[in-house]
């Protein structure tokens, strides 16, 4: 069996979701020939990183047509390598490439996969994480992988054969171009990549108090999240919303501060490894999904918590 993995990279680094995609390829068939496809610019430094994942071949498309991301050109490049499975990180790029590839191949598709049962059965969530659905695929299959769910692949030194891809462009591909990338705020941790998330809800009482959440997050090296209520109220940007109409996250530690736990919020975070809730309402539904909780006023609890964490970290 042959499995192609799209090794998405940005700024000369393999993205974490691409490494997770390698793990998924191993779970589909640990004995399969794994073939990487690497596209973009500044790919040299990545080449070394790739020597640890048991890849048999890597197809590299560097510069030229591949210099900046283009969903159609990238999908055609991946399609040009023949395989039984195509495993694509479920990032914003992968969510464009996966469906395109499926159309090109006229194949099966399993999207936003969170578990691999065997080579034909995949688990994904429907109704915003409230229900898990097992789908059975047949024949050639494209899989997109939800970021942040799978472990990183085990590393063993291995050599691969490097091949070069030539760009294929169709006329209509000229009609869309990525003209500018505005960098993320420096030091800001992306929700879907974070190991720890601290989220605030209506209990924070106003945007002017969110510095408490930010300080606690800063102390833990965590990303900041928010409930739908505070995003809809305009206190926080929608990019921070965790839940059914926001982001699905599953960090190692999720701290819900002043969040009651509406069903659509729980849908977005209940797969986190450890959930901690701080809420003054003992009856808040968030406590039902929590591993640990403190019933108390967050304006008293959070400062005490930060003091104690600092103490422990300094030991």
């Amino acid at each position, binding site marked *: 069996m042959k499995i192609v993995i799209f090794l998405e990279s940005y700024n000369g680094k393999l993205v974490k979701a691409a490494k997770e995609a390698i793990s998924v390829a191993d779970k589909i068939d640990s004995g399969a020939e794994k073939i990487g496809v690497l596209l973009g610019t500044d790919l040299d430094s990545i080449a070394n990183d790739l020597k640890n994942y048991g890849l048999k071949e890597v197809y590299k498309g560097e510069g030229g047509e591949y210099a900046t991301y283009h969903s159609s050109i990238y999908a055609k490049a991946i399609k040009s390598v023949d395989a039984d499975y195509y495993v694509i990180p479920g990032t914003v790029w992968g969510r464009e490439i996966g469906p395109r590839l499926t159309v090109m191949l006229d194949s099966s598709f399993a999207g936003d996969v969170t578990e691999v049962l065997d080579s034909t059965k995949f688990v994904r969530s429907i109704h915003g994480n409230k229900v898990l659905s097992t789908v059975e695929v047949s024949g050639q299959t494209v899989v997109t992988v939800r970021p942040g769910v799978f472990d990183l692949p085990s590393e063993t030194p291995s050599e691969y054969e490097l091949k070069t891809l030539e760009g294929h462009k169709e006329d209509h591909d000229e009609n869309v171009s990525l003209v*500018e990338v505005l960098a993320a705020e420096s030091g800001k941790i992306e929700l879907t990549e974070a190991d720890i998330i601290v989220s605030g809800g209506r209990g924070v009482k106003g945007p002017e108090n969110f510095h408490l959440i930010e300080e606690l997050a800063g102390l833990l090296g965590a990303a900041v999240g928010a409930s739908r209520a505070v995003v809809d109220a305009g206190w926080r940007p929608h990019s921070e919303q965790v839940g059914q109409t926001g982001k699905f996250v599953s960090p190692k530690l999720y701290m819900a501060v002043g969040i009651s736990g509406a069903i659509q919020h729980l849908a977005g975070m209940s797969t986190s490894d450890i959930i901690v809730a701080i809420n003054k309402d003992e009856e808040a539904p968030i406590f039902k999904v929590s591993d640990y909780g403190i019933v*108390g006023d967050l304006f008293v609890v959070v400062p005490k*918590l930060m003091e104690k964490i600092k103490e422990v970290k300094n030991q």
Partner: protein
Amino acid sequence: MKIVVLLKAVPDTETRFKIREDETDVVYDDSIEWIASPYDEYGLEAGIQFKEKLDGTELTILTLGKGNESQVIRKALAMGADKASLINNEDLASSDPLGVAKVLAKELEELKPDLIIAGRLATDSSDSFVGPALAEIMKYSLVSEVSTIENFDESHLVVLRDATGRKEKFEVKLPALITTDKGLNEPRYPKLPDIMKAKRKPLDEKDLAELSAISGVANRKVKQVKVAFPPKKQGGEIFTGDLDEAVDKLVKALHDKEKVF
């Protein structure tokens, strides 16, 4: 110019589901309230705003449903769409992702829009599949998950989207397909006179002959074989009472036992 907005009827996001006895799907009964998928509604609002700025724009909504979409269509027409096209067929609506895209493409090839708008995902199936797949089938320019429309006219769009923390800006020539993210706009509420007027707007429902012409493209390669609820957490440790003590216990648990910091 012609705009088509894809609109899917989905269960309300606050729905508490039950699972069928044979565990092959959730129960879809009368207790479920069907709404337009929230991301599709951002797409519809975007379409209405284009129409308000560009004279002569015709805005059509296209729905593939299974008899649960009439209210959703009526609301969309009341919000400002000019007409609706409905493929009402349970069998087609339950094709696999590629099948659904192929069915919709058949109709879009008839409608020949300059711009297709869809939500970035449907909150029920959560595939993020149909929009990008249609762009590939139709050979349209694609930008998905658009959160800002910076500029537009009859032939171009300049749009931005969030991409893992950074923002990407695209220039797009029509014909194009965009999918819409939360934050793009605030969908309007229909006004009462518009609700009345909407009843007279045209609704083109495919008849059996038209349906059978489409049905050949429906795929069945991917099957849902089982559904289940996610495993529930066992009751956690909830600290009440003295807050200093509670904080001590929590930090001790996170540091010594769970080793998260």
